[in-house]
């Protein structure tokens, strides 16, 4: 676009002055429209990102001035047992949630896409839970999965399965949280459903003429066509799992029985640190123990990992952005 403008300038020299003035105005307008965003980005992302890295080399408790201690915070991570637990728990969620969320949302969307009647109702029912506040959603499952009295316990009882203690059992607390996360995965389901409905009908018809049944049509036509959206689901789920905080805190403190907002610290990670995720430990270190330097070091580590995960998505988006700009409009 800028190239075309310049060419025009060369041809018509007379109004060149006016053009450069209008160009300056154009630039000022862009700047004016973006001014709040630039300021906001600098204040709330640019500065704190750099400052986080800076704080990570210090010992800082918010009261006394930060004291430079070099790489000590990073070195401490290797001897901090709970850091290792937190990394393990978060990795558990990254692996389990990513697979479970994408497979589950894809499965639900595939079924809903094939419904002939009641699509709207089922779609609404699947999507609504994802709007619930995470605190509420976790408490809902806390009720449903409560040992001995809860409906899930009774349901499993019909099949002769003895229900675990869920949020009170170190082995089952994480799967319990994963169940909450699946219940609220309706947004991903809607995205995948839209992609499935966008698959050109002719492709199905062609496959049907070749004698492909519904399952083979799904495998050979639907899946390959919507794979970019599934990729989005994977990256989105990884990011979601890496920052899992609220559900873990609420499940842990509610299960420990003495959940109050300020006292929750004592019970973070309950039971037996099985719900102590990376962000929970970061929060505890920084804002309960006021070891801001160590929290900043953990934040830096989280940022580096996220950066790698995000790069994946951005790469994909860049590709599709280029395709978009191929059109005459851009």
């Amino acid at each position: 676009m800028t190239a075309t403008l310049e060419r025009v300038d060369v041809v018509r020299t007379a109004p060149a002055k006016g053009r450069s003035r209008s160009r300056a105005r154009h630039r000022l307008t862009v700047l004016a429209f973006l001014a709040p965003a630039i300021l906001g980005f600098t204040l709330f992302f640019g500065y704190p990102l750099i400052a986080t890295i800076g704080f990570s080399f210090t010992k800082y408790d918010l009261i006394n001035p930060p004291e430079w201690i070099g790489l000590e915070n990073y070195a401490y991570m290797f001897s901090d047992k709970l850091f290792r637990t937190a990394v393990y728990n978060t990795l558990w969620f990254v692996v389990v949630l990513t697979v479970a969320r994408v497979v589950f949302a894809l499965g639900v969307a595939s079924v809903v896409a094939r419904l002939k009647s009641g699509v709207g109702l089922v779609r609404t029912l699947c999507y609504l839970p994802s709007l619930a506040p995470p605190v509420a959603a976790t408490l809902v499952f806390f009720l449903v999965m409560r040992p001995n009295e809860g409906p899930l316990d009774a349901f499993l009882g019909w099949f002769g399965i003895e229900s675990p203690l869920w949020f009170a059992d170190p082995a089952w607390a994480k799967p319990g949280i994963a169940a909450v996360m699946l219940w609220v995965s309706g947004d991903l389901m809607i995205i995948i459903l839209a992609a499935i409905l966008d698959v050109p009908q002719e492709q199905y018809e062609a496959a049907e003429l070749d004698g492909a049944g519904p399952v083979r049509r799904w495998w050979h036509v639907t899946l390959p066509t919507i794979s970019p959206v599934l990729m989005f689901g994977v990256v989105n789920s990884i990011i979601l799992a890496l920052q899992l905080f609220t559900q873990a805190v609420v499940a842990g403190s509610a299960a420990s029985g003495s959940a109050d907002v300020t006292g929750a610290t004592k019970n973070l990670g309950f039971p037996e640190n099985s719900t102590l995720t990376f962000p929970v430990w970061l929060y505890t270190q920084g804002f309960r123990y006021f070891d801001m330097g160590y929290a900043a070091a953990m934040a830096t580590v989280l940022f580096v990992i996220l950066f790698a995960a995000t790069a994946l998505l951005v790469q994909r988006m860049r590709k599709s952005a280029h395709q978009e700009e191929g059109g005459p409009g851009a």
Partner: protein
Amino acid sequence: MTTATLPVTSPASSPSREPRRPRDWRRVLDWVAVHSLGIALGLMFALPIVFVFLTAVMSDSQAFTKDLWPREWHWGNFLEVFDKAPLLKYLGNSLLYSLLATIGMLLSSIPAAYALAKMKWRGRNAVFLLVVGAMMLPPQVVAVPLYDTWSSLGLTGTLWPLIAPYFLFDAFSIFLLRQFILTIPQSYVDAARVDGCSEFQALVRIIVPMARPGIAATALFCFLYTWNDYFGPLLYTSEKPDQWTLSLALSSFKGMHHVQWNLAMAVTLLIMVPAVVLFVFAQRSFVKGITFTGVKG
């Protein structure tokens, strides 16, 4: 429904092609399988809320038991929770946070999204990538320096550290609005420019009215995100109970009244009301908005 639609189609096709019969049976089976799965899925998503509702209207003692169905319907529980905790205070705080943040977001994000979608300038793609990057960043990563800054300004213990940023920059909203504005044909903007509209006029007179569904969806998401936010209020207001939002208060409610399942669940339902109401009135905006975050992203 099952029997109404299918027999109509099968006799129509069967007389001409007799050998197709087994195929029809497979179709019926397929139809039944898909729809039973659909019903099962609907139940799976809906039942937890049904249980919560049934528990919320039980008596104190019955809420403790295995019973699924309330013996007496204690509708008063929904009022009683207002005596147990200053819910109106929390509601006020939540509304303050969500409404101000949404207003601030609209003021700051619409012009930025327009500049990213419909104006040509060098570095636009790089800026867009920064927006996407900011969108992916979990709040925990930047929490330490921000808390440090807000506390030196004496504003920790209030909701202002959470509200203020929306008046300048909200990455997700800018991203979503840009995606919506991109779908408005460039010719409308060009025509406005030819007619002598300034960029600001083109934005206010052409883009804003045309992007109204997108703006509504973005506002809805912003409102719900802040309404549901837990980490932010926990970080800044956990020591100041008179500043708590509903989300934060709910996390403590079960602890403070942990014998009373019915009341805890009544509050849980009340906090979900805005989401459900907004969804009922703006279902299309929601669905459109959510698809835009994925497909067009």
